[in-house]
């Protein structure tokens, strides 16, 4: 979406004085709520309904996941700093923050890849049981969203290097930022509802 919703399509005088692209992005995020909601509810519905193991308790590594959650959380900070930078017209700092955000995102993703492979080694795949099915598809779907965000961040970085991301186009960064933060808040919910609560004492 953010890729579609270019500032170039931002009408200068609109009825509300707000940017089309930003309105569109928020509508899209509202719609995303129901998307992830459905996957999370599927996970909750099938909680403890698996006919065979492994169960969450068997495979989760909470300290590990906590760290990667923290990493994603911090990427939101660098993201918002990137926006602040371009709005101030500070392009070197913009590039640094964009790259930092992308790197943090990549750390999170590689962490997830490692987690998945470990789960598979411990005998949990999408086909094993309802837990495997609902867990992998939910978190994988989120991972795909993060990956999409990383691609957008990198292309913003590239555009900025070519000087095709002037200060007037700050909105492009803001839109990608909105998407990125949304993916982050979804993970906040997943971390609580999918990781901590099911296995908590």
């Amino acid at each position: 979406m953010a890729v579609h919703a270019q500032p170039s399509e931002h009408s200068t005088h609109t009825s509300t004085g707000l940017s089309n692209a930003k309105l569109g992005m928020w509508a899209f995020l509202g719609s995303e709520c129901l998307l992830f909601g459905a996957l999370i509810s599927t996970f909750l519905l099938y909680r403890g309904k698996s006919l065979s193991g492994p169960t969450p308790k068997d495979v989760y590594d909470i300290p590990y996941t906590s760290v990667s959650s923290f990493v994603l959380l911090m990427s939101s900070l660098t993201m918002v700093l990137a926006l602040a930078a371009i709005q101030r017209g500070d392009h070197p700092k913009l590039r640094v923050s964009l790259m930092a955000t992308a790197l943090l995102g990549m750390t999170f993703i590689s962490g997830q890849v490692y987690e998945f492979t470990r789960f598979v080694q411990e005998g949990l795949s999408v086909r094993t049981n309802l837990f495997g099915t609902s867990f992998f598809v939910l978190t994988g779907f989120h991972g795909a969203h993060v990956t999409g965000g990383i691609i957008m961040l990198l292309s913003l970085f590239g555009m900025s290097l070519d000087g095709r991301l002037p200060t007037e186009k700050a909105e492009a960064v803001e839109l990608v930022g909105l998407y990125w933060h949304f993916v982050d808040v979804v993970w906040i919910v997943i971390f609580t509802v999918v990781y901590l609560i099911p296995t908590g004492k």
Partner: protein
Amino acid sequence: MRFQRPTATTGWWSWATTVDHKRIGIMYGVTAIVFFVVGGSEALLMRLQLARPNGRILTAEAYNQLFTMHGLTMIFLVVMPLGAAFFNYMLPLLIGARDVAFPRLNAFSYWVFLFGGLFLYSSFLLGGAPSGGWFGYAPLSEQPSSHMIFYSLGLLVLGISSTVAAINFAVTIINLRAPGMSLMRMPVFVWMTLVVSFLLIFALPVLTIGLFELFFDLRFGTHFFDPNFGADPVLWQHLFWLFGHPEVYVLILPAMGIVSEVLPVFSRKPLFGYPVVVFSGIAIGFMGWGVWAHHMFAVGLGPVANSAFALSTMFIAVPTGVKIFNWMATLWGGDIRFKTPLLFSLGFIAMFIIGGLSGVTHAIVPSDYQQTDTYYIVAHFHYVLFGGAIFGLFSGIYYWWPKITGRMLSETIGKWHFWVMLIGFNVTFGPFHILGLQGMPRRIYQYAPNLGLNFWNMVSTIGSFMIALSLLIFFYNVVHTFRRGAVAGEDPWDGRTLEWSIPSPPPHYNFEELPVVHSVDDFWHRKYAEGEGGRLVPVVAGGSEADREVSTGDHGGGGHSIHMPSPSYFPLVAALGLPILCYGLIYSTILVIDGAVTLLVGLYGWAVEPSAE
């Protein structure tokens, strides 16, 4: 990568690369009508099969594919895109805008819709069309014999198209209204478009996840709906109907909007209780979220859930009834001219009342235990979606045709079309009520001769061919008047809304100067002033031109200096990626990569290309 922008203004390429909302609207309309013919032919085949007991015209497998594709076609490839056609063409004209908020995104959603439809239909050549019903209940949908993989991917693609379009329309309405057009000065059709857009934005993701899970079950062996692994197949039903019920209002609200535009024009009275009609539309949109489980009364949700959903279902009838009463009050005391558009709107009201009332009878859960999954239900939703949506959309076609083509359709042929269609419709679907109550289940490719169902089935089949005839009459009307039809002029119906203030067909920049809006039905008030007691006083000749205001600081001068978004290849390229991707997901990884690359190239080119040169 910056290659030459498309420059053609006529011919195939100009259509393939257009970002003009009017051209995209026309493409939506034409495509939808073509699919209407296809879906209709499927229906005729089914009626032939059911004309007599133990029909032998179709095999069971063929029949099941046909009724599945008939449902999918009529909902996703006919009624929704016909609505989208009017949204595209009319929305900017009605709110006094020059285009939609995201012109290229608009082209993208059309191409995705077209490719999605073709992808779905390609299944006929690739091992058989889906045969698990448009509702695709698990676990039947997961049996290989149901071919539901094309269903899951096809609807995912169509969902992308609709979501993108819905966001586009919502933003357009919120942001691109002419100066002075506050929300409560918008035409009702625009209001209904807004409600529909939000319904789609919030309802489609639910279906998307359902389809996503179904696809993973089919392709990657997950177990979302697999009872053998402890899954509960009812989950699919909740996801499906959580989308499916708002979808019903997505299908009917555009027609309601059209009717609300047509009635005032042809009774020469303002819409009775504009705020109430608007609010009831919004109310329907909201309440539409609280009734989905009335599709599942027989599943065994328990008496408490069934009672709750019975209540919510009954009370959604209230705002619907309010609309109908307001429409009748609009006609009341009017100066009613029975032009074809009005006839179709009246047909809508008359038929929709029947559909609504039968709807109430199966909100009564116990009687739904008898009626669910019988032809009584089939009757109900055809009275709502054909007698309702299709009649309403035809009303729109006859009403706006002069604006779109610059020529009038023939009134005489149009009236023939209406009467044959109305009678054919009732002869076809009226008997369904009786058949259902007398024990004919849905989705059966044959029925026993000893059930006493033979007579009304034969009647219904005859009726279905009358409907087909009425469509032929319509096509004759189109062909007959396309060159020879009377020239319409700007305002053939003495209309009330902004689109009638500009030439027919409109110039590609729509409005030379953006109008300034002072009230609902602004254009009408430029032509007529209201004396005391609401008596109308025509404004002095030429006055309508004289006192037209111009929003200051806007481009003028015959539209030459008006800057419109330029055509682009990239929406088409990006859209092309999706079906390739889907075939890949079924057949080969190479195609997946191919599709993904096409998509990304399209999006990238799109991103770096400015919307206008």
